[in-house]
C-alpha cells in the first residue's frame, strides 16, 4: 500500500536521505533500523509530509503523495507518532482523542452551535471510539487527567491510541519503545502485533530495540548514513554482512 521509490532529501549541502526505497504491503509490519543519525526520522518526515522530499516518489495506495501538505496525507490514512512524545499536554486524555477525530466530526459550525441530532450522534460515536481505545491501552480510568501529567509509558500509549481513533490504514511509529522499561516494551510488542492482527493496520516502525524489531517485523529495511544498506526478512537482515559490519563498526 505504501511504496517509497528512490527517496532523497537534501538540507543545504547535506544529503540526509539518499535514494532510499521501501514498501509496506497490507497487513504487514515493516521496520526501519539503522544507527543514530542514519536518516530514519527524516524518511518518516518525508512520508508524513512534514518535509518536501528533494527527490523520489512516495505512492500511497497507488497515488503520489510526495509534497502534499501533512494534514492531507494524514487524512489519507497514514498517521504517525513522534520520537519525542507530542501530546496536547494541557488538554485532558480524552480530549486528545477527540481532537484526533476532528475529521469524522467535520460538520459545520452552525450544526454544532444548535446541536443538531446529527451532530450529537457523531459526537457520541467519537466518544465511544475514544473510550474504546482508552480501555484498549489501559487509560480509561485516567480519561479526565491532563495528558501532560501522565507517566511516560502512559503518554506513549496515549499517542498510539490517538493515532488509532483516526482509523488509519498505515500506522507509523517513531521509536515507540524509547524510554520504556522491559515490561512496558513487552506490552507494546503485543499491542503492535494486535493492531496488525485484530485491526488490520499496517505498521511502519523505526526502532532501536532489536529484540522488539526482530520479534514482530515481517520485513526490515536497514539505512546507514542516509543510504539503504539492506532489506529483507529479519533472518536475512541478521545474516547480512554489510549490516553486521555497520553495526559492529559503530560499536
Amino acid at each position: 500500500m505504501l511504496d517509497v521509490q528512490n527517496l532523497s532529501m537534501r538540507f543545504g549541502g547535506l544529503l540526509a536521505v539518499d535514494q532510499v526505497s521501501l514498501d509496506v504491503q497490507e497487513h504487514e509490519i515493516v521496520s526501519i533500523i539503522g544507527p543514530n543519525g542514519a536518516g530514519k526520522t527524516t524518511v518518516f518526515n518525508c512520508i508524513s509530509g512534514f518535509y518536501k522530499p528533494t527527490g523520489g516518489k512516495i505512492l500511497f495506495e497507488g497515488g503520489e503523495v510526495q509534497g502534499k501538505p501533512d494534514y492531507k496525507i494524514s487524512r489519507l490514512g497514514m498517521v504517525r507518532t513522534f520520537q519525542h512524545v507530542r501530546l496536547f499536554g494541557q488538554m485532558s486524555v480524552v480530549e486528545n482523542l477527540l481532537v484526533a477525530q476532528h475529521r469524522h466530526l467535520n460538520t459545520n459550525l452552525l450544526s454544532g452551535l444548535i446541536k443538531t441530532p446529527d451532530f450529537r450522534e457523531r459526537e457520541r460515536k467519537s466518544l465511544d471510539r475514544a473510550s474504546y481505545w482508552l480501555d484498549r491501552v489501559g487509560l480509561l480510568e485516567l480519561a479526565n487527567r491532563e495528558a501532560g501529567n501522565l507517566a511516560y509509558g502512559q503518554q506513549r500509549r496515549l499517542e498510539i491510541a490517538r493515532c488509532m481513533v483516526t482509523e488509519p490504514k498505515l500506522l507509523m511509529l517513531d521509536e515507540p519503545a524509547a524510554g520504556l522499561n522491559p515490561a512496558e516494551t513487552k506490552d507494546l510488542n503485543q499491542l503492535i502485533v494486535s493492531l496488525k492482527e485484530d485491526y488490520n493496520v499496517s505498521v511502519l516502525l523505526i526502532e532501536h530495540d532489536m529484540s522488539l524489531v526482530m520479534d514482530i517485523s515481517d520485513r526490515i529495511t536497514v539505512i546507514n548514513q542516509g543510504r539503504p544498506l539492506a532489506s529483507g526478512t529479519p533472518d536475512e537482515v541478521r545474516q547480512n554482512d554489510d549490516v553486521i559490519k555497520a553495526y559492529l563498526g559503530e560499536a
Partner: protein
Amino acid sequence: MAANNLKHALFCALVTLIISYPIIGFNLEIQGINITLTGATTSTIGMVLLAAVIVFLFQLFRDRIMSALRSLPNPLPQPRKEPMAENKRARIESWVLTGIVVLALFWPFFVSRGSVDLATLVLIYIMLALGLNVVVGLAGLLDLGYVAFYAVGAYTFALLSQYAGFSFWMALPLGACLAALFGLVLGFPVLRLRGDYLAIVTLGFGEIIRILLNNWTALTGGPNGIGGIPDPTLFGMEFGRRVREEGNTSFHETFGIAYSGEHKVIFLYLIALVLAIITALIIRRFMRMPVGRAWEALREDEIAARSLGLSRTAVKLSAFTIGAFFAGFAGTVFASKQGFISPESFVFLESAIILAIVVLGGMGSQLGVVLAAIAVTILPELAREFSDYRMLVFGAAMVLMMVWRPQGLMPMRRVHIELKKQE
C-alpha cells in the same frame, strides 16, 4: 558564596539606582523656549534610595525569602486540584451565573447614570476580551492588532449611518461580519507565520488601519472622527427627546412617561448585557465543539495537530475570524454608546488593555476574563487619583503574571467528560 551574594546584591542595588535616579530624580521642565533641569522633591529621591535598599536586601536574602514565600499557602485556586464532584460543581456554577445575570438585569434601575454608563463600557470590554480570548487564550495566536477589528465594527456603523442611514440593528450584524471578513482576509496570509512574527505583523496591521482612518479624511473625517451616530431603537421607538427619523415614535411618549435621559443609558446597557451574554454563550459552545478543541490542540502542539489531519490554516483562520467577529460586535455597540468615534479610540494601547484583561483573567478561562474585564475597567475609576498609574500597573502586572502565574488568576478549567464503560 556569601561574599558572592553580597557582591551580586550590591550590583543589583547599583543598577536600580542607575536606572531610576537619572529618570526620576531630575525633571526636565520647559520654560518658554528653554529647558531647565530641576531636582525632584526629597521624598521622591528618598523613594529611589529606598527602592535600591529593598533590591539590595532582597537580593542578599533571596534564597531565604524565596523559600519562605514557597512555604506560604497559596490563597488562589490551584489549577491542578482534583475538582469537586462534577455535577455538583456544574449545578453551583449555573446557579451563581443565573444569579449574576438577574442581578445585572435589575441593577441599573437603582444606580446613577454614570455607573450604568461605566457598566456598559465594562460589558464592551467583556465582549472584546472574550473574543480575544479565543484568539490568544485558546488558539495561542498573539494578536496585537485586535483593536483594528473593533475599529472596523465601529466605523462600519458610523459610516453606514452617516451615508446610508442605517440603524443600529441593521449595522450590528453588518459591522460584526465586516470585521470578521477583515479578519479572514488579513488572517489568511499571515497565519502561516510563527507566533512572534504574527504578533508583530498584527501590530503592524492595527497601526496601518489606524493611520488610514486618520488620513482618509474624505471618508472618515480623519482625526475629527464621525459624530451623530444614532442610538439604538426599541421596535422603532427612539430614546431621544424628539424623534429623529420619520416613522419612528419616541419611547417616553409611547409609554406615557416623562422623558428621561436615563432610559437611553439603561437601554444601551441592557443591549450590551444581552450581547455580552450571547457572546459568552456562543464562545462557550465553540469551546466544547470540535473546532474549539482544534484551537487548543494547535496551541499545545502544532506539529502533532497537523499529523492528525488538522489544517493549520483553517483552524487558525477560524479562531482569528471568530475573534474579529466579536470585536466588530463590540465596536458597533461602542459607536452607538459614544455617538462619536475617532481614530483616537483605536490605538495600540487599547489592544494592550484587552490583552492585559485576557492575561490577568487566565488565558482560555471565560469567567476569569469577565472578572478581569470588570476589575481592569472599574478599578481606575474608583481610584481616580491613581489613574495615571493605570498603564504602569498593567504593564507590571502583565510581567508579574507571566513570571508567577502564567495561567492567570482564574485558570481555565477543563470540561469533565463522562465516558461509558466498555462492555
